[in-house]
């Protein structure tokens, strides 16, 4: 015990320092350092780990497959945004020269290299960080739809808080009826990543099959990014607001490649 006392005291002091330092605003250096250390290791380990889900392929086919998939992703993104862009064009035409920002997104492709070890959090680690221009709060998506936002970033890797995390909140708008609400993450009974729409005022129109997009309220996410589709509207006649279960458009449980929107900076009220 005497021999162990020295290292133990050191470790207890170190953990106390880590907790104290990390809770101070602006001292996220601890997490940045951790990401910088584990990011490269996760990148190496995650490569064979991905093979657990899909069988190995020949290099050339894999390369061509990757190129084709990138092209499809681009087309899908354009197609996904089309209805919102059409509405925007109408609005712009009506309001003459009023211009909205955030329509020309600059993408950065990133690979998922790890996940949060806890079953309580839905956080993924990507292989892009400060060196690639990634900052906290940036929007992350796939061609299918919204994935989440940058939660912590290191120099070469970052963590993404997925929209399926129970602490995630996304301001949403129903594409058809323009009803507004908030989408948060839930876990389905079989563990699938699900979403829940709430805080939609009574009297607004919600129906199964309605598409939900980001409203842009709050300034964190750009407007018009597809979140998901309403699966079921929950009747709540005695409540002030409507709720619905939502199926996420992005395959949140099977993410491999995502895109970070580089040119939409989240608004910060603290300056």
């Amino acid at each position: 015990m005497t021999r162990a006392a020295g290292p133990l005291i050191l470790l207890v002091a170190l953990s106390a320092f880590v907790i104290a330092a990390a809770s101070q605003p602006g001292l996220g250096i601890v997490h940045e350092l951790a990401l910088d250390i584990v990011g490269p290791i996760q990148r190496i380990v995650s490569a064979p780990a991905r093979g657990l889900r899909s069988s190995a392929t020949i290099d050339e086919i894999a390369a061509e497959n990757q190129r084709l998939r990138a092209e499809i992703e681009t087309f899908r993104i354009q197609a996904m945004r089309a209805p919102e862009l059409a509405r925007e064009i109408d609005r712009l035409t009506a309001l003459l020269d009023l211009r909205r920002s955030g329509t020309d997104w600059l993408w950065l492709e990133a690979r998922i290299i790890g996940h949060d070890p806890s079953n309580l959090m839905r956080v993924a680690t990507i292989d892009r960080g400060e060196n690639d221009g990634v900052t906290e709060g940036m929007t992350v998506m796939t061609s299918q739809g919204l994935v989440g936002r940058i939660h912590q970033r290191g120099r070469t890797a970052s963590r993404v808080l997925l929209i399926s995390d129970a602490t995630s909140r996304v301001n949403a708008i129903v594409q058809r009826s323009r009803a507004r609400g908030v989408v948060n993450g839930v876990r389905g009974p079989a563990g699938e990543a699900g979403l829940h729409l709430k805080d939609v005022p009574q009297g607004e129109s919600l129906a199964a099959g309605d598409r939900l997009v980001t409203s842009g309220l709050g300034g964190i996410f750009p407007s018009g990014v597809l979140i998901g589709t309403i699966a079921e509207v929950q009747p709540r006649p005695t409540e002030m607001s409507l709720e619905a279960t939502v199926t996420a458009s992005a395959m949140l449980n099977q993410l491999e490649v995502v895109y970070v929107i580089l040119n939409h900076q989240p608004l910060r009220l603290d300056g």
Partner: protein
Amino acid sequence: MRLALPLAICIGAALVQATVLPHMALAGVQPDLVMIVVCLWAALRGRAEALLWGILGGAALELFSGAPPGAALLATIAAALVANTVGTRARSGHPIIAFGGLPAGLLTSFALMLTAIALRRGTDLQFLAINAILPALSLDIVVGVAGLGIALWADRAASRR
């Protein structure tokens, strides 16, 4: 008590938990490998070792965790101490009974993690408890049963030294 082996085991387990196990999740949950290793060992060994493994396991989880800073560290230390307390008392009967330290430690860690997440960001505790903690706890206990033989063997080997 040497640091190198526990440190290597904890970091290795955390790395596997953060990179490999998510690809093999059952019903959306994966085994909390680090917590299982720490709690099993803490239940079988003395308090100083439990504390050491709790700190090392927590620090390893912190490296990969997106949870509020310090939450994983505190949860793992507390889980190790609870597992040790329950395990030590139960061990007066039979070593296998010390296995009771595992669910006790796991429950402690889940409760603390849940509190840390809820305090920091606010979330539906009941929802997470039913949909995330219950299936995760069940899976962890099953994996723990499978690992108990290894833990008992390692305990005997360490005691002989």
